[in-house]
């Protein structure tokens, strides 16, 4: 889509938005000083006028403009100031073409104008498709659909945008950015919540308020969802986190059908009473959603007469969030940023990024969350890989396995921008610094995308030795963020830890630097990557822990550490008692009451208990040799005992024996049983999983000894574009890995070009494509054609529910794999 590139502002040219505001009243509304009244339901009114279920209501702006105008006029007469255009679903796919979008918006705005609207609010609803990674619509394509609507609405003469009924924070963000980057009209943005207080995709009111207000919504709030009594507590959760006015448009309760007539159970009086409560709590923009009529709006007009918007107080805590949860640090709280997803100086991580082994990265994320990280740093900076693409893939996958907010860690501004642009939530950027060029490049990105920002106290002259020198750079950074409109609590200064072994004055300079920054730049937070301090010293964890506690004492807010190191978490947890953050020491007592030595080895009771219970079955006969027992465990599909059994085997044998005489024969037997039907699929998979637990141990031992077990070759696999069914692909992956192949797993819903690029880059000789739906077979064919063109050396096998040998041949595949076992045979034939 070329137009996306055209509409997106050029990199680094984000001027502060100068709003085009229709009049003084609207300006006061945006400042929270005046109330604004929206209208009520459109859909309910259209249905009452005989619109058929499933019809495209937006087309009525063209077919029956008088009817639409009449509905608007009734709301104007009832006292609505902002009239919402009948364009909720007016996106190109729903209207049947891009050229319809301007036509519908033009007609819709005219209907609202003709009705006498004081303000015409251009309505933008969800696309109806789910965005990646859970769905198949890309962020950029969603943005493009919204941008078409924004441009059309602005050209048609709308006064503001109302982006509404959003359930997906990523989609709301795409719409908001489309409005912000293609128009200078005010943006109102509301999301819809379920009874459990979350959107369908799990976003909380707090997360919505933090993200949307950081991104630059001019008014945010709740619409649709529920009746006003149930909307009230949701709005109240938003109010403390929104830096802009908050709006509420509830439904008239729940609909019920009586004698073919739809009735809503909340009447206007009751509705307005609940709205009154919300207004007193701080809501200043009101209206209605499903089931409301002009009568409800009239009630709201009467309600607001003689009232003033209630004073509000907004929290100034440090806050970042994923689409699911906030990380909040009140002044004085300390936070843990997990440092492990970073290849710098980490061999295993480098290897994982190079070979596309994202499973390892996911396991690091899960472990860090379990051990106490509140934010995860993500860095994919390796010169030999595409950093930007890798970072985006990692961030997408990480959102599937953890709900922790992410810290985007890169030295390249373009990479940072690409990563934060589509991130659903408010990330932390790591980092900018005192160099003019870096400030000019990164600060505008943080401001435009509403991110928190780490600033390093380093500049063109390097890292100053004195605390005052560090403060001077911090001051320069904060001047830039202040000028860009980034709130102080979103700025996090890193005074940069230096090795004590090379300069023993450094630790005191860093600590004093932290103290000065906190004192001289009120509101600003501090962060520190701690472990550099101990470089060159023995028993580094002890030095790190001592320094971390000193830094907390100096006012440090966040440590970038490895939370798996118990000693570091001990400092964090005990400091929280001493600082009062851990009230009544409840968390400390719960975690440490049974600990005898706080600095001992990490607790492993949980894991060993699990092993014990899994070995508890009758089939693990201790009289057998470890090799025989390992074989039995693979056949039983029990992974628990496998690591220990492998170590036992290695006491008497080498790694090759464990592979060739234990694991592979066991897997062969599993394959035979599956083929004969004496094993069913979960058994096959559980056996593969047990074998994998064994292989993992062998790999560890091998890595440690420096020996190499030759890979049998690489296989690239994916589920094709448009399809998100990945079970079949995952089964194939597991089996191929067991048989000693390196599997390059490109994931699901994979663009043909992305797949073929990877095949070419790694010179892969066998590709496996999976498709489950008839509708995605063409995407499979497209991928194969591109493979033949650009990677003619690569053989292709295909599989999936809709395929058969004839179909496979038709799409141009070399092999048809009826199941995973078959794919292993094909791999053996081609790769040996």
């Amino acid at each position, binding site marked *: 889509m070329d137009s996306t590139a055209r509409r997106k502002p050029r990199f680094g040219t984000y001027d502060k938005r100068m709003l085009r505001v229709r009049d003084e009243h609207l300006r006061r509304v945006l400042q929270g000083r005046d109330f604004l009244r929206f209208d009520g339901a459109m859909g309910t009114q259209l249905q009452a006028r005989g619109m058929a*279920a*499933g019809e495209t209501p937006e087309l009525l702006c063209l077919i029956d403009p008088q009817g639409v105008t009449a509905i608007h006029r009734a709301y104007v007469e009832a006292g609505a100031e902002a009239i919402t255009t009948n364009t909720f679903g007016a996106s190109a796919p729903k209207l049947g073409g891009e050229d319809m979008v301007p036509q519908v918006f033009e007609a819709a705005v005219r209907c609202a104008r003709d009705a006498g609207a004081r303000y015409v609010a251009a309505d933008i609803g969800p696309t*109806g498709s789910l965005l990646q990674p*859970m769905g198949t619509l890309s962020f950029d394509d969603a943005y493009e659909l919204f941008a078409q609507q924004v441009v059309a609405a602005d050209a048609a003469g709308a006064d503001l945008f109302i982006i509404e009924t959003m359930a997906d924070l990523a989609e709301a963000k795409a719409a908001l950015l489309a409005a912000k980057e293609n128009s200078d009209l005010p943006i109102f943005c509301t999301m819809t919540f379920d009874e459990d207080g979350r959107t369908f995709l799990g976003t909380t009111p707090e997360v919505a308020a933090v993200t949307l207000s950081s991104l630059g919504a001019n008014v945010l709030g709740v619409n649709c969802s529920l009746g006003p009594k149930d909307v009230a507590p949701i709005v109240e959760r938003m109010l403390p986190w929104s830096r802009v006015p908050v709006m509420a448009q509830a439904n008239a309760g729940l609909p019920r059908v009586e004698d073919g007539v739809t009735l809503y159970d909340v009447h206007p009086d009751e509705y307005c009473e609940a709205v009154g409560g919300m207004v007193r709590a701080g809501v200043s923009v009101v209206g209605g959603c499903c089931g409301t009529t002009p009568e409800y709006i009239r009630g709201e007009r009467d309600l607001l007469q003689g009232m003033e918007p209630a004073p509000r107080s907004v929290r100034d805590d440090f806050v970042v969030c994923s689409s699911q949860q906030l990380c909040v640090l009140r002044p004085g709280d300390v936070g843990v940023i997990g440092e492990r997803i970073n290849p710098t100086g980490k061999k295993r991580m480098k290897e994982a990024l190079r070979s596309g082994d994202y499973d390892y990265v996911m396991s690091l994320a899960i472990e860090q969350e379990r051990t106490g990280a509140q934010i995860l740093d993500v860095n994919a900076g390796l010169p030999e890989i595409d950093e930007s693409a890798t970072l985006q893939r990692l961030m997408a996958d990480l959102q599937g*396995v953890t709900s922790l907010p992410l810290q985007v860690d890169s030295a390249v501004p373009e990479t940072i921008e690409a990563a934060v642009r589509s991130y659903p939530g408010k990330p932390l950027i790591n980092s900018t610094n005192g160099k003019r060029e870096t400030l000019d490049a990164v600060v505008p990105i943080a401001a435009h995308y509403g991110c928190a920002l780490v600033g390093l106290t380093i500049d063109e002259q390097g890292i100053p030795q004195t605390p005052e020198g560090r403060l001077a750079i911090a001051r320069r950074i904060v001047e830039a963020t202040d000028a860009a409109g980034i709130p102080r609590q979103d700025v996090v200064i890193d005074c940069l830890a230096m090795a004590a072994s090379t300069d023993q004055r450094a630790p005191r300079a860093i600590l004093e630097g932290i103290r000065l920054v906190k004192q001289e730049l009120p509101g600003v937070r501090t962060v520190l990557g701690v472990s550099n301090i101990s470089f060159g010293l023995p028993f580094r964890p002890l030095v790190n822990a001592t320094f971390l506690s000193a830094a907390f004492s100096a006012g440090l807010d966040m440590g970038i550490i490895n939370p798996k190191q118990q000693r570091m978490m001990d400092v964090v947890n005990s400091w929280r008692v001493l600082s009062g953050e851990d009230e009544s020491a409840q968390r400390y007592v719960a975690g440490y009451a049974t600990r005898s030595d706080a600095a001992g080895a990490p607790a492993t009771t949980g894991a060993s208990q699990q092993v014990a219970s899994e070995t508890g079955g009758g089939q693990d006969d201790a009289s057998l040799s470890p090799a025989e027992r390992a074989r039995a465990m693979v056949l039983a599909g029990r992974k628990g005992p496998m690591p220990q059994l492998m170590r036992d085997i290695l006491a008497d044998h080498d790694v090759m024996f464990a592979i060739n005489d234990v694991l592979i024969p066991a897997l062969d037997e599993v394959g035979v049983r599956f083929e004969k039907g*004496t*094993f069913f699929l979960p*058994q096959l998979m559980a056996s593969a999983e047990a074998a994998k637990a064994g292989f993992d141990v062998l790999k560890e031992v091998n890595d440690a000894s420096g020996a190499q077990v030759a890979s049998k070759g690489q296989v690239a696999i994916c589920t094709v574009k448009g399809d998100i069914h990945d079970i079949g692909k995952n089964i194939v*992956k597991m089996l191929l890995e067991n048989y000693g192949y390196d599997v390059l797993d490109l994931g699901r819903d994979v663009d043909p070009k992305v797949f073929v690029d990877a095949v070419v880059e790694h010179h892969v000789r066998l590709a496996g494509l999976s498709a489950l*739906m008839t509708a995605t077979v063409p995407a499979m064919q497209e991928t194969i054609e591109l493979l033949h063109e650009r990677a003619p050396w690569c053989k292709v096998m295909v599989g999936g529910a809709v395929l058969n040998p004839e179909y496979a041949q038709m799409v141009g595949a070399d092999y048809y794999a009826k199941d995973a076992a078959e794919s292993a045979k094909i791999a053996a034939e081609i790769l040996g």
Partner: protein
Amino acid sequence: MPQIVDLSIDSVDRSEVLRYMGYAGQEYDPSLDQRIDQAIARAIEVSRPRASIDFFDVETREVRDDGTPVLRLRGTSIELAGHSMEEHMADAVAVGVLAVTLGMGDERELHRLGLTDHVGQILLDSASTTLVERAADAAESLIVAEATRRGLYTNFRFSPGYGDLPLSIQPTILSALDATRRLGITLSPTLLMTPTKSVTAVVGMCTRPQASTRRSCKGCPCFDFCTIRPTGRTCHG
């Protein structure tokens, strides 16, 4: 105006879950049993089964220029085209339309397991498929109840993509049931519903008992959700 119903389902048929996994009486390790039970419990825990249901009278039966028979319904732009529908709805005077979903909680968990635990993914997928079919049973029972109230008989539920009822009808069905806004069901350009554990279907409401109309309550998939039987009557008269 569609009816939105929360479906409370606290159990699924374990043998059905095994059937989706391709089980045919094989002997297997007890540890797998435990994991299957955990997967079923997890599916129930993370799912929020919900339905949207509406009823439309049959308006006309026509034949398109290309020879395709089509059933038009009053008050909706849903058109039931093809020979499958012609046959299935031969005696129908009204049609119940349903959409059910387990919600994004289940979908997210499936996605998480796809990234972390492939055995767990297979087990949860089978448990979830069983659960969403169960949810469809529960939704269907509400259509049966409405039919009985109107003195009509239902046939079995029929989903787009089966027979020659085209999948291309999905956008209209979801729109008519307001299923994106009310249930959170989205549709990809390839007509894939997400959450993937979602079902849409149509049920004929007919003037006389159908070949597929249940003759007895024994073995009826709607049994656990039946609102007719407690009143002392049955849907089959």
